Structure formats: structure tokens, C-alpha cells
């Protein structure tokens, strides 16, 4: 990533180079400046404790913001949190934020929510910045043309104390997605297809840049869905070059630049997209015209196929490791090779997580379920990404649509994405989930997760088995 300024450069290289405080020599890491640091209750307590033990302060309170999300309950939010570990973590964040002077949005506050929903909605996430958080899905912020990195607790402490991180340069990979998506196919399907193509380790060591006409045509929220799951391909970050869609989204957000600052910012942001002729270390192409709604059948996000296909046969995998992994996954998921994916009944539908819990996701989900009733056997939970999204949805009547459908309308948080709060699957339960990880036990011990888009989640909630929009439409017509 040391391309000279005069030579054609990629988006990632430009943002990186503009944040080098000290260039590392002889293979040493670069010291990179961090514009924005997001905190939540799970990965911050030890970092605060480390600062305290060393007698250090937090260098840039004005570039730091905290919210409560992983442990927060999504029901009865005015009552004390029952689980002692969850309660302790949240209490620790409150005490630490008060002691160090960190801006915190607590449960019940209108700005509280999943950290990756809160940053963009406040206009703090903007093009060309570096943003870090002690959470792997910080890659979400790359949708703005920022470098968003998930970091560990020691690095959280490092950023608190120095507002920098020593980082080794990454390689760059272009993911070209050209064409026009068919109706019912969404950003989520693009990223599930990308991960199925390159594998969960395919992005290791890379910053991915999503390019091409299908990406340009996406809304900011769709781009966030894609960048969010870059981490599931093993990548360190994912990015989309900023354009008019980006600027329109950021403009007039509470912390967005205003007046002359806005003009200056936009002028700079326009210089960021990858130059013609810039070289990527690797390039991948996906044809958007051919994409179908996607779903995972296994226990990692790379184990996905088109929803119209059948559960794969492990023996069909060329690689011995893939065969073994598929066998294990099918056993855990209790699936038989050859079964049509659409014949698989589910017990639960989870509509939420930092992948798909923004207002557009809720609108998409609501537009399908409107006026219908959920399948009787299915439990459906709708969890907005932030309190603000919840308020917005309620102003649009989405809460009513959800409740009339027979689904649960919850308060904001990570919820069943990882089940740190009481929102969990029971052992053996099967869930269609709009989240990002289908690991064993992720949504509750013994729970089985199929990753899907909000549209597939809605269709599945109506029919009680994995379904696409076209299945619902056909039923209506019949």
C-alpha cells in the first residue's frame, strides 16, 4: 500500500496514506491515526481498567462515543437487567464513561442502539475516515468509503491512550459486481454469494473494495449490509467508494459538516474513489443479473447456496476439508442432502442485527408482511438496530404492521444475533435470521441458524419454511 501519490491509487490506499502518522520502516507497522472510536460494554471494561492502572487518560474524548448494545434486553428495558454478567458489563461501562468523560448513550436513551447503526445515523461515520471499535463488524462503516476496523481489547486501550494504532498495510481486493439485481434479490444476497464464492478465509489480509454497477445502484443501507459481512469472508475491512448516494445520506445528519465545511468535505471526498489504472492485488467478479435469493445451509457464512437449490451432498465437494466440514455442518443443522432448501421448516425468524436492522430493512420486511398473519408455528422477532430506528419505524406505522402480523416488536440491541441477552434459540430450534453469523450455538446453545435477507425472512415468516418473495407472490395470486 505504498503507491506514490502521482501513480494511480485505490480508495483504500488513499485513505490509509492520509492517516499515516509515522511510516514504519523495515517491515515495522505504520502508525495510523484514528478519527473515530466507538465503544460498547463488552470490549471496553478492561481497556478502561488498563488506562486506570497505568494512570493514563483518554486522549480524544471528542472522537470517542459509547453505546450499550450487546447485553441490553429488548423487553422491559426499564427493569434491572436480570443476568448478573450482563448487568455488570453495562454498569461498568456507565461507571467508566462517567469517570473518563466519555459520551454514552444508555439503554432508554433515544440514541442508544447497535454501535454500527448509531455511528452512521449520527453522521459521525463519513467518507475517508478511519473508524475502529472493539467489534469485528466495524467493517460496516466502510460503506461510506471509510476504513472501518474491528480491534481487540488491548488495541481499544491503545486507541484510548494515543488515538493511533500501529498497523501493517493490507493487500487490496476488488469485488466487481456488475449488472442489475432481479426483484427480491438484495444486498444481503450479494454478500452471501460473495462469501460462498471466496470462502470464509478468502479475504484474509485484504481490504475488499466492492465495485461495479450493482454496488453503485445500492442505497447506503444496502452498502452497509455488504461491508458489514466483509469480516465473514475473513477480510480486515470492506469499502465502497463514496458518491452522490453517500453524500446525500450524510448531509444534514446531526454531526455532518455544515456550510463551508460541507463543501470542503465533499470536495475532498470526491478525490477518494480508486483511480483508473490502479492495481488491486486480487480481483473477483460476480454477475448481479444471475443472482438469486441466497441462504446458508451450514454453520459458517460461506456455506450458502441459492434458495431454489437443494441441501448439498458433502461427497460433491472436491476438497477433503470442505467435505468434512459439510458433513459436520449438516449433522449439526440436522439436514439431509438433496432436500430442497424451500422444504425446510423453521421455528423462529429473527429480523435484526447490525447487518439488517436499519429503517430500510424494516420497511422491506414490513412491505411483505403487511396485512398478513405469520405462520402459526413460527416465532417472529423484529428488533430495530437503534432506538432512533424504532421511533422512525413507529412513526411510519411499522410497529403496527409487525404486531398485526403476530410478530414481536422489540427494543433496540444486538439481541438474538448473539444471544448475550435472553433472546435465544432453544436447543434444536431452527431460525431464519437476517444476522451475519450462523456458527454453532451463536443464537443459543444447540440453535440452528439460516442466514437470509429481510425479504426472505418475511416470506419465511409467512409460510413457516424457507421461502422467497416469489413463493409468497404466487400464493397470493393462486
Amino acid at each position, binding site marked *: 500500500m505504498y503507491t506514490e501519490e502521482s501513480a494511480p491509487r485505490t480508495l483504500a490506499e488513499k485513505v490509509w496514506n492520509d492517516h499515516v*502518522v*509515522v511510516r514504519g520502516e523495515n517491515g515495522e507497522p505504520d*502508525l495510523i*491515526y484514528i*478519527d*473515530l472510536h466507538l465503544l460498547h460494554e463488552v470490549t471496553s*471494561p*478492561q*481497556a478502561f*481498567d*488498563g488506562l486506570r*492502572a*497505568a494512570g*493514563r487518560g483518554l486522549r480524544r*474524548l*471528542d*472522537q*470517542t*462515543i459509547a453505546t450499550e448494545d450487546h447485553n441490553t434486553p429488548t423487553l422491559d428495558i426499564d427493569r434491572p437487567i436480570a443476568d448478573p*454478567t450482563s448487568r*455488570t*458489563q453495562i454498569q*461498568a461501562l456507565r461507571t467508566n464513561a462517567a469517570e473518563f468523560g466519555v*459520551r454514552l448513550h444508555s439503554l432508554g436513551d*433515544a*440514541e442508544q442502539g447497535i454501535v454500527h447503526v448509531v455511528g452512521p*445515523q*449520527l*453522521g*459521525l*461515520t*463519513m467518507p475517508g*475516515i478511519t473508524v475502529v471499535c472493539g467489534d469485528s463488524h466495524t467493517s460496516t462503516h466502510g460503506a461510506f468509503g471509510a476504513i472501518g476496523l474491528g480491534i481487540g*481489547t*488491548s488495541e481499544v*486501550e*491503545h486507541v484510548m*491512550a*494515543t*488515538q*493511533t494504532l*500501529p498497523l501493517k498495510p493490507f493487500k487490496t481486493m476488488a469485488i466487481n459486481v456488475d449488472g442489475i439485481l432481479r426483484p427480491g434479490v438484495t444486498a444481503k444476497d450479494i454478500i452471501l454469494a460473495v462469501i460462498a464464492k471466496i470462502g470464509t478465509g478468502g479475504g484474509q489480509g485484504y481490504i475488499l473494495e466492492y465495485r461495479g454497477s450493482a454496488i453503485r445502484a445500492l442505497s447506503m443501507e444496502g452498502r452497509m449490509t455488504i461491508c458489514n459481512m466483509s469480516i465473514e469472508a475473513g477480510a480486515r475491512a470492506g469499502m465502497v467508494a463514496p458518491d452522490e448516494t453517500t453524500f446525500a445520506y450524510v448531509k444534514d*445528519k*446531526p*454531526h455532518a*459538516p455544515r456550510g463551508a*465545511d*460541507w463543501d*470542503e*468535505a465533499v470536495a*475532498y471526498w470526491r478525490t477518494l474513489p480508486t483511480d483508473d489504472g490502479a492495481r488491486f492485488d486480487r480481483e473477483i467478479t460476480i454477475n448481479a443479473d444471475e443472482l438469486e435469493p441466497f441462504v446458508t445451509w451450514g454453520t459458517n457464512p460461506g456455506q450458502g447456496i441459492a434458495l431454489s437449490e437443494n441441501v448439498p451432498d458433502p461427497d460433491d465437494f472436491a476438497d477433503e476439508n470442505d467435505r468434512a466440514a459439510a458433513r459436520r455442518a449438516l449433522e449439526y443443522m440436522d439436514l439431509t442432502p438433496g432436500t430442497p432448501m424451500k422444504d425446510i421448516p423453521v421455528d423462529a425468524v429473527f429480523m435484526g442485527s447490525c447487518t439488517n436492522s436499519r429503517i430500510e430493512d424494516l420497511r422491506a420486511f414490513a412491505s411483505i408482511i403487511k396485512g398478513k398473519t405469520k405462520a402459526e408455528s413460527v416465532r417472529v422477532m423484529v428488533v430495530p438496530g437503534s432506538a*432512533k430506528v424504532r*421511533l422512525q419505524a413507529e412513526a411510519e406505522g411499522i410497529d403496527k404492521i409487525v404486531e398485526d402480523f403476530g410478530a414481536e416488536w422489540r427494543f433496540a440491541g444486538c439481541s438474538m444475533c448473539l444471544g448475550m441477552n435472553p433472546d435465544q434459540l432453544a436447543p434444536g430450534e431452527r431460525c431464519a435470521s437476517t444476522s451475519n453469523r450462523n456458527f454453532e450455538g451463536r443464537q443459543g446453545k444447540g440453535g440452528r441458524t439460516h442466514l437470509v435477507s429481510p425479504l426472505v425472512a418475511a416470506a419465511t415468516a409467512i409460510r413457516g419454511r424457507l421461502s422467497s418473495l416469489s413463493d409468497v407472490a404466487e400464493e397470493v395470486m393462486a
Partner: protein
Amino acid sequence: MEKFTTVTGVGVPLKRSNVDTDQIIPAVYLKRITKTGFDDALFAAWRKDPDFVLNDPLYKSGTILVAGPDFGTGSSREHAVWALRDYGFKVVISPRFADIFAGNSGKQGLVAAKVPEPNVERLWELMDASPGLELTVSLEDCTIVAGGETFAFDIDEYTRWRLREGLDDISLTLRNEDAITQFEARRAGWLPKTLPIASTVAE
């Protein structure tokens, strides 16, 4: 982080190989929210056994752990180093360390000293001959002195320098304090600022 030059203290023989981080600190202790105060968690499962070496009053105040090969394998939890440090250990001696453990040690001021297996066995013999024997570990010349005998140990040069200078990651970065301050002075005024607070909700 304190500068490390020479430490003299009671050597604790831990005659086991493959002491993984789950043994050093069991997973249940990872729920804690502090980075300090893990002394009670160190070898928690083994300490329930009255015959475990740290339950012997002679070794209770030990600061130098002498263990078998492949120390610190398994999960990458930094807590393993915190627990050893909080208990009071300044040095761990072993014929081989897991890479991540050795890396984490250097960052927390714990010396992971590599000594060939026959010499570790000789150290055990010396410690058995006079239980509670004090060892002296010097980073100046990378030696261990025990019962009049001297043993060399290995540690990578960079880690040795950090330990002698007492530099944790943050202090290392803060050597560039001026560069950071200059960088901040050059930054555009419109970049994100979380303070003062602007609300979305009042709009």
C-alpha cells in the same frame, strides 16, 4: 510497565509440559471486567489440589516459574499473562513457549526465558535439593543463577529491549507523541466530533 533488569526470587518448579492457557486461567474467569486482580484465577483448577506446588508454603511467594516444554499453548487469551503477573511472577522459564503467549508476555513485563530442556531439568534438581531456593534472572546478560550454577537463556532482542526499557505498546507509541500532536494540528476541522453532542431526536 516497570523496567526489568535483574530479579531475584523463589523459583517454583512446575514439572509439567504443555501447560495450556486453559490451565493457567480457566475460561470462567474471562467474564471479569478488569485487567488486574487475576491472582486468584492462576492455575485455579490445580490449586484445588492440596499437593499442588503453589499450595506449599515454601513456594507461595515464588516469582520465577520453571516449567516444562510448550508453555502457554491453546487459546490466545491475554488473561493468562495477567494472571501470572498478578500472582507475582516476574519470569517464566521453559524450553519452549507458544508464540502468542511469548508475545503477550513481552507486552506485560513478564519475562519468558527459553532454556534448553536438560538445563530446565537441572534447575528442577537444584530446586528439589533445596526447596525454596532463590534464583537470579538477569536481562543484562540473559543468565539465570541458581545454587552457584549459571544458565543462559534465550529471548528475542526486540522483546528484551522493550522489557529493559519498561515499554508497553502504549508507551512505545507515545514516543511518537510529537508526531501525533503535529498530525492532529493538520487535521481538517470538519472531521467527526462526538462532542459537543448534536441530537438526532430533537429535529
